[in-house]
């Protein structure tokens, strides 16, 4: 029983990271109708920036916030420079640019900071929380930060004017422009926010998976799984999907023989395939019906 509870809590902690990544994916998907393959590498690069800032002596939370700001600006620039010009281009052009971005960020990180594994600090400490054996304080901190972020995003999108403008721009760009909403900038803003959310995910998971240029590859796969499970059109679904994938991953790794640590990633892939076969729109997604 204790083991079960322990695994569920640990699953919630990593699930929060998947939820963040899935949310970042969904935001960009809503804005430009394409899945950002480079989301994980963007997060990894942000994490390296945070690490570099701390190496230079910046305190953790200052580095954290600075990294968010840098990532936000970088996200906006990526949209304006790379994706805005190919806005109307076919899907393959987008995929090629995503892969290019992936490759560039990955190699650039390796070039600047080399491929050796680095330690990334946690501000929460890694001892058990309050002396209980259930959850480590870093895991608890991860859950806390994730929930804070999700609440912030919820309030932003539900209760602010600019949040409504972003939702309108994603839902019906043509009509939004006729209402005077600058749709192009809303998309850029979405990219900036997605990059910042990814940075949070990267910095929180880095103490667990260690910092190196390929650290996000498997995390991104779980993020994909979360987004697909929840439905690519549903931010709330992506979050629930993230937590669900985190818990399932942990429980399956512990309780199903043969899965263990080595086959855990397979579960993410299995989930993606299963959901696509049974309910392609995801658990909470909308089927897109177009009238011709």
């Amino acid at each position, binding site marked *: 029983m204790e083991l079960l509870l322990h695994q569920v809590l640990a699953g919630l902690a990593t699930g929060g990271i998947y939820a963040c990544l899935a949310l970042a994916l969904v935001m960009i998907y809503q804005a430009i109708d394409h899945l950002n393959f480079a989301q994980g590498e963007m997060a990894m690069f942000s994490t390296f920036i945070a690490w570099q800032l701390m190496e230079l002596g910046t305190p953790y939370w200052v580095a954290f916030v600075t990294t968010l700001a840098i990532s936000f600006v970088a996200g906006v620039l990526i949209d304006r420079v790379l994706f805005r010009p190919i806005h109307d281009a076919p899907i393959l052009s987008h995929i090629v640019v995503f892969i290019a971005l992936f490759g560039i960020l990955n190699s650039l990180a390796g070039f600047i900071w080399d491929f050796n594994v680095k330690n990334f600090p946690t501000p929460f400490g890694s001892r058990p929380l309050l002396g209980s054996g259930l959850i480590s304080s870093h895991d608890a901190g991860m859950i806390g930060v994730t929930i804070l972020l999700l609440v912030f995003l919820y309030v932003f999108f539900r209760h602010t004017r600019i949040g*409504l403008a972003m939702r*309108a721009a994603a*839902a*019906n760009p*043509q*009509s939004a422009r*006729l*209402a*005077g*909403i600058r749709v192009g900038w809303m998309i850029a803003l979405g990219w900036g926010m997605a990059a910042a959310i990814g940075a949070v995910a990267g910095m929180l998971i880095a103490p667990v998976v260690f910092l190196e240029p390929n650290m996000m590859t498997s995390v991104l796969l779980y993020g994909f799984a979360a987004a697909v499970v929840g439905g690519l059109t549903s931010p709330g679904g992506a979050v629930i999907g993230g937590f669900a994938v985190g818990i399932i991953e942990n429980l399956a790794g512990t309780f199903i023989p043969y899965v263990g640590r080595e086959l855990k990633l397979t579960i993410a892939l299995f989930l993606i395939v299963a959901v696509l076969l049974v309910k392609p729109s995801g658990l909470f997604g909308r089927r897109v019906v177009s009238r011709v």
Partner: protein
Amino acid sequence: MSALLEIRGLCAFYGRTQVLFGLDLDVAEGGVTTLLGANGAGKTTTLRAVSGMLRTTGDIRFAGERIAGRAIEDIVRLGIAHAPEGRGTFVRQTVEENLQIGAMARNGRAAIAADMERVYGYFPRLKERRHQQAGTLSGGEQQMLAVGRALMLRPRLMLLDEPSFGLAPLIVRELFEIFRVLNRDEKVSMLLVEQNASLALDFAADVYLIETGRLVMTGPAHELRRDETIRRSYLGY
């Protein structure tokens, strides 16, 4: 007196296909102009051209200012509200959010809230359904919402694209009654595109008739009403 909206020699293109050929059209300050024509004549295209939604040549002036070639978002900010074909409803958002979206080009929380009440005054049905998802509204209610969204801009000119389309006659009458009030009391100028010619001729002061992208006839509504061709082709008696 120069007109509020002045169109001279307007040509418009979808890709390489030209759909408007040198159109001239005026909307007087405080006036109502209607654009008649068969399906595919270029009525919707004309409205889209004014809103900056497609590539055009020729001259479009609003209150004396050249607006051809500007971005949609900038044209909206001059006070041109477009209630588009298909109504442009944000189906997943609530009625109230749809109205807020209509005011995105403006600032001033209090003024926007006051205008929301004004719209609810015109359309009490929308107030009843303010927290409902707009996609669940009936066709008539969605058309009211489209007009309401346009009103939230506090427009000087409204571009109305077939507001009667698919609506029950009673609702159409109600809607046009409100257009009359808006035009009379709030001095909103209107450019109306309609399939229902008799309705449009009753409401508008000036009429332009186009066929395959070319102007074929223009004049005051009361004169064109008596015209033999118009009567036969568009009024059907």
